[in-house]
């Protein structure tokens, strides 16, 4: 075969199971999920959509701080997480709070992370994850290390990490995949391609036609998935996980997705760089809409059930915000206590100063 860009690109066709109408278009690839599991996936997606709506509202009221909207990316975020086991380790980027919550991070701690309180990052024992990474790409090289650690320990688990389309331009993105490849480490690298890095469209990141094909540079498996199709995302992740724990190395998964909201709540206005037509086009692909149709077709979902989830989400969010409010304020001495196992003399000296201030 002649080596052309075209035949490389052709190896990364979009993997889809469920179309926009909620119809199965790839029966052979259908993952083995029970009715209960299918309902659980829908439950999580609806819950997360409500969490996003409430988080935006709470942010506007000044009751949350840093927040990166997630609406539109539910299939991509939750489909990948649902394929994991408890012992798998998540290295999220700043938009990937939902995966942490479904991996076991209490909601009120996620809210404390948003506000900027260290307790938000004190993950409970057994929640195998890091707090959301702000430095784009850093999570990728760290994931290679976590995965190599798992391999050395002989664990049957994986490290999974996420970045966006813009993040694929970073050096650490490339190094992370390349290291994991060279060590044949059990890592899953997810690129959530929502087409924009703040205002910069993906076409300005790279001339590559797919982001999945960047796996070629590391010599690892790559797959492009319809990121609005929760079944395809789940199936791709499950396969990547299986390959990884069987010692067959890492995988890069590109999910084609969209964020309906702004980049973050810190003043980004997507109408400056996105057309209404593009928004409308992607709203038709809404992962909730198509999965709802699919489940209704199987008699597994109803409006009542959805409303129940919505009510439950709202209740739990209210309780979590309350619990976050009740968290004691941070003290400088506490920040100092978390710097080193043993406080060096210069810090000890400052500690005494602040201890005196705080006791006034």
């Amino acid at each position, binding site marked *: 075969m002649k080596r052309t860009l075209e035949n490389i690109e052709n190896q990364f066709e979009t993997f889809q199971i469920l179309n926009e109408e909620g119809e199965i278009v790839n029966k052979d690839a259908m993952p083995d999920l029970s009715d209960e599991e299918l309902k659980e996936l829908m439950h999580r997606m609806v819950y997360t959509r409500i969490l996003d709506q409430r988080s935006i509202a709470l942010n506007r009221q000044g009751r949350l701080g840093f927040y990166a909207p997630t609406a539109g990316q539910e299939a991509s975020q939750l489909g990948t997480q649902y394929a994991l086991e408890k012992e798998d380790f998540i290295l999220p980027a700043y938009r990937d709070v939902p995966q942490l919550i479904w991996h076991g991070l209490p909601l009120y701690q996620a809210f404390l992370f948003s506000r900027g309180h260290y307790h938000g990052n004190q993950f409970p024992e057994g929640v195998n994850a890091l707090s959301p990474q702000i430095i784009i790409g*850093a999570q990728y090289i760290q994931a290679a*290390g976590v995965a190599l650690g798992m391999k050395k320990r002989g664990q049957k688990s994986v490290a999974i990490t996420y970045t966006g389309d813009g993040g694929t331009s970073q050096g650490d993105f490339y190094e992370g995949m390349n290291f994991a490849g060279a060590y044949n480490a059990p890592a899953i690298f997810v690129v959530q391609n929502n087409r924009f890095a703040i205002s910069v469209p993906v076409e300005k990141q790279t001339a590559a036609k797919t982001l999945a094909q960047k796996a070629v540079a590391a010599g690892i498996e790559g797959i492009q998935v319809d990121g609005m199709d929760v079944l395809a995302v789940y199936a791709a992740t499950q396969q990547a996980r299986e390959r990884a724990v069987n010692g067959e190395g890492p995988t890069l998964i590109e999910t084609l997705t969209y964020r309906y909201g702004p980049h973050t709540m810190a003043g980004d206005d997507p109408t400056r760089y996105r057309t209404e037509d593009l928004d409308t086009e992607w709203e038709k692909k809404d992962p909730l809409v198509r999965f709802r149709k699919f489940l209704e077709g199987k008699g597994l979902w109803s409006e009542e059930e959805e409303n129940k989830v919505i009510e439950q989400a709202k209740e739990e969010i209210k309780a979590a915000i309350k619990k976050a409010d009740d968290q004691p304020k941070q003290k400088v001495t506490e920040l100092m206590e978390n710097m*080193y196992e043993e406080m060096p003399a210069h810090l000890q000296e400052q500690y005494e100063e602040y201890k005196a201030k705080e006791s006034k």
Partner: protein
Amino acid sequence: MAQMTMIQAITDALRTELKNDENVLVFGEDVGQNGGVFRATEGLQDEFGEDRVFDTPLAESGIGGLAFGLSLQGFRPVPEIQFFGFVYEVMDAISGQMARLRYRSGGTQHAPVTIRSPFGGGVHTPELHADSLEGLVAQQPGLKVVIPSTPYDAKGLLISAIRDNDPVVYLEHMKLYRSFRGEVPEEEYTIDLGKADVKREGSDVTLVAYGAMVHSCLKAAEELEKNGVQAEVIDLRTVMPIDLETILKSVEKTNRVVVVQEAQRQAGMASYIVSQIQERAILHLEAPILTVAAPDTVYAFTQAEEVWLPNYNDIIEKVNKVINF
């Protein structure tokens, strides 16, 4: 006791810790079968296997991320950055990530990483091999920075650094690798991080130094003695945190100080040390605190090292100034 060069003492410390703790992992560019570009890891892969001592792809940032990730799986990584001039590639992994892990996780996670890296001038290396960049990492809360100047210190400090449960940057001066031998106990021992060592006692002036400049200070002190000036030479050994107690005790005795570093005046640790002495011991000072440092240019082209690097004559000159102030 054995006579060892500093590089042998470093290898000995690595061997000791690889033996002591199965979580210790040594990795970097060419540290495996090749035994390191300076032979610091020679024989370690043969002795402990490729699982414990291994090569990496050529990417410093990736090495930093690897160390960080391995920490999260309970390992005790001892990565090597081939020359510290290459630290710019891995600044985020060191200062932006591992230094902050314990803090950002509220004490629930930590990175017991020891980053070994050679630096230092006087051996005619090509560009960006010899630069003194300890000042950069010393400004990052969450890190400790260790710079030994003798084989004995090198071994004890490296064992302590590896056992420390927080990230330590351990910088090895290339000129000191093989320039002399010293007594090094064959058994394991530790030297506390953050503790300076008085390498020479004196009553007239305190010389505070680290790295290769310790030896320049000792040479200057010998010369000064001929003129009846007794210099006390303090080897910091750890440049962050610094051992203020030892410095202040000496200043209270000598009342005069010269701080000596190989780094440029605007870099290194001297300014911090001067400010700390000034804040705490101004009433003990008979003269301003002077510093010896390199000019504020980019590190010298190879052939200009001799005229550019600070040497013992520069030290003598500054000492005479504070004595005759």
